[in-house]
């Protein structure tokens, strides 16, 4: 990470997927690196299965907690369609990390709108540095679907060049002890994921 500038990470997904925990682990990591950090979350109505976005900014000095459109260095998307919805927030040359999972929104379930096909290929055409991983399967391998968020954190942390020991310390800070072993395993799965 370049010390002189602010690094912007946009975490998007569907309400209930655990994006907030992911952002808390990431911000803990940034603090351990000695950066100024700001995080913006949305609570309330959107959390009921709506499209949710969490923004994390880190650097020597951060003013705004929000990332301007087109300025994200990395987008971590917990779901395919959400990656497509938010991709214009990514700067040219940025990195897109996608959990290769589809959660159909109600208008699609109702048959009123269509879930687009070949989303990852579509995104890859616009964003050369696109990485897709099946975090749900990897989480399931660790014993709990809910750990998919931490699998994705593992992949993101490696992509961002954080030291692994520091990541595990951040996990210890932010995850309740009884889920720590599960989440450490999930983090390793993401870190080692072949993409």
């Amino acid at each position, binding site marked *: 990470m370049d010390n002189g500038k602010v690094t912007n990470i946009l975490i998007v997904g569907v309400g209930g997927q655990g994006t907030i925990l992911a952002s808390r682990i990431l911000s803990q990591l940034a603090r351990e690196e000695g950066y100024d950090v700001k995080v913006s979350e949305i609570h309330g109505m959107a959390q*009921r299965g709506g499209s949710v976005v969490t923004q994390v900014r880190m650097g020597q000095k951060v003013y705004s907690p929000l990332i301007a459109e087109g300025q994200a260095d990395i987008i971590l998307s917990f779901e395919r369609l959400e990656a497509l919805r938010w991709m214009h927030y990514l700067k040219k040359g940025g990195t897109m990390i996608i959990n290769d999972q589809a959660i159909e929104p109600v208008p699609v379930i109702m048959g009123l709108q269509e879930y687009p096909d070949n989303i990852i290929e579509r995104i890859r055409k616009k964003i050369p540095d696109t990485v897709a991983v099946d975090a749900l399967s990897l989480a399931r391998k660790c014993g709990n679907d809910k750990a998919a968020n931490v699998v994705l954190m593992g992949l993101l942390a490696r992509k961002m060049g954080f030291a692994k020991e520091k990541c595990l310390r951040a996990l210890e800070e932010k995850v309740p002890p009884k889920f720590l072993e599960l989440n450490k395993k999930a983090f390793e799965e993401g870190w080692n994921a072949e993409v």
Partner: protein
Amino acid sequence: MKELLTGNEAIARGAYESGVTVAAAYPGTPSTEILENLVRYPGVYAQWSPNEKVAMEVGVGAAIGGARVLVAMKHVGVNVAADPLFTLAYTGVNGGLVLVSADDPGMHSSQNEQDNRNYARFAKVPLLEPSNSQECKDMVGVALELSEQFDTPVILRTTTRVAHSQSMVELGERQEGQAKPYVKNPQKYVMVPAHARGRHLVVEERRKRLHDYVETSPLNRVDWEDRRIGIITGGIVYEYVKEVVPGASVLKLGITFPLPERLIREFAAQVEELYVIEELEPFLEEQIRLMGIEVTGKKLFPRVGEISQRVIAEKILSVTAHKDLINDAVLAEGVETDKDVRIPVRPPVMCPGCPHRGVFYILSQLKMTVMGDIGCYTLGALPPLEAMDTCICMGASVGSALGMEKAHPEMHGKVVAVIGDSTFLHSGITGLLDIAYNKGATTTIILDNRTTAMTGHQDHPATGRTLRKEPTNPVDLAGLARALGINRVVVVDPFDLDNLKNVIQDEAAADEPSVIIAQRPCALLVKEKGLPYVVEAGTCINCKKCMKLGCPALTAGVETVIVNTTLCTGCGLCSQLCPTGALKKEGEVIG
């Protein structure tokens, strides 16, 4: 020690450090987490009140009693609490009182985007606006000191981006203050006209003293840079301005009422181009114009929604002679969207197993006119249920159902009010009393899911637990309705669709008012999920009747409907709609 805190966590920390001993609130996004955090600190008594007015009145009593007090609510909550606020501005306090108003520009989770800064001017009380979490913490302390020094309530106004953004906060120690003694003083605290006339003079005199105070407060400061552009701003917009126009001089106002006139005049005189940038109303701009200072504000910047870095850059660039001071990097084009594909919307939805779903399904089947209210169940207005006609404010369903019925007597039997348990206790009770008193025949459906769900599951007077998680006497909703004069009160299980339909039809048709309590805990509170349903392949005729429920656990397949068994909670509504019995509990399927 530094911690990464949200604005709300920092406000709670500030209240703790500043020696607050009493706090009251009603949950409302984006204010809820203030009390949820404050209750964890030792030496602070914190409570959920049934509504914001009562929370404010609890604060009034505690402050007159001499304690330091915090009262918190979302912007529209201040409408409810306005009555005690305006007269507390006359009586003044004894111990300091800070009212946190959490506004929601952009309406992330609200029914309007009113600008509560106007309340400060209206009630003539000081107004503080933090830009980040550190300021949230610090300004609670300043607000309490100001409150005691000037004998007035003080409003601390945040917005969603301040309340729900995390930034670094330096923690301090709690300053243990003794509660001031209470001294009886009817001239000050009993606002009969003769006393109130005298107090109004005190308010005006206080306003003058406050004008002097704000001129030198460190919360109002100038960041001098290049004097070709000067910007007056406060709150979250300050953070955007520092990023977008790093080269400009900025007058940052931490106290936005009353305004520091001398400071503003001096600043205006020293800069070439003068802008005022604020979200929503031209609150600062109008007051600055009244001083006779020409400033560019709402002529350029939007009055609707949130202001972004991009808007600030674009708008200033469109008029300034000093483009070199703008950091136009925020305007750099990012990745193009894929224009070949239509992206389906993803609106919020009722959860799988939500006890509200069946009620709205039946109301939609019966083609009822539904006067709605504020809560998760407002989602009943969205497709495919589309079973809500109005949603105005907390409690409005009940009174407006009576109004609709009085305007259209022929609609009797086709109009119902639908209101959640927490919302009913907040401000539905008086509406129901009105129905009984004025001989309405309205049916009120209380969706009793045993919690305040939308804001994240807070307790309320019917749950039997306080904010401190102590057991308490729960109010009996059925008994309460009867006591108000409603004779027909029925409790139903919203998972039993046939019975639900019969009860709603019978009660709506009755010639006297009725209350139906649809009782089931919120699906998110039920720890043990039931066995999921599955589709028996040969039996499903793919008629999609079950899909009319809008359940996220059901998907239209090519040959049959498909149940997502991870999401399904086994509520069984879909199986009750299935004409062929194809939806079966897991384990019941043959073959």
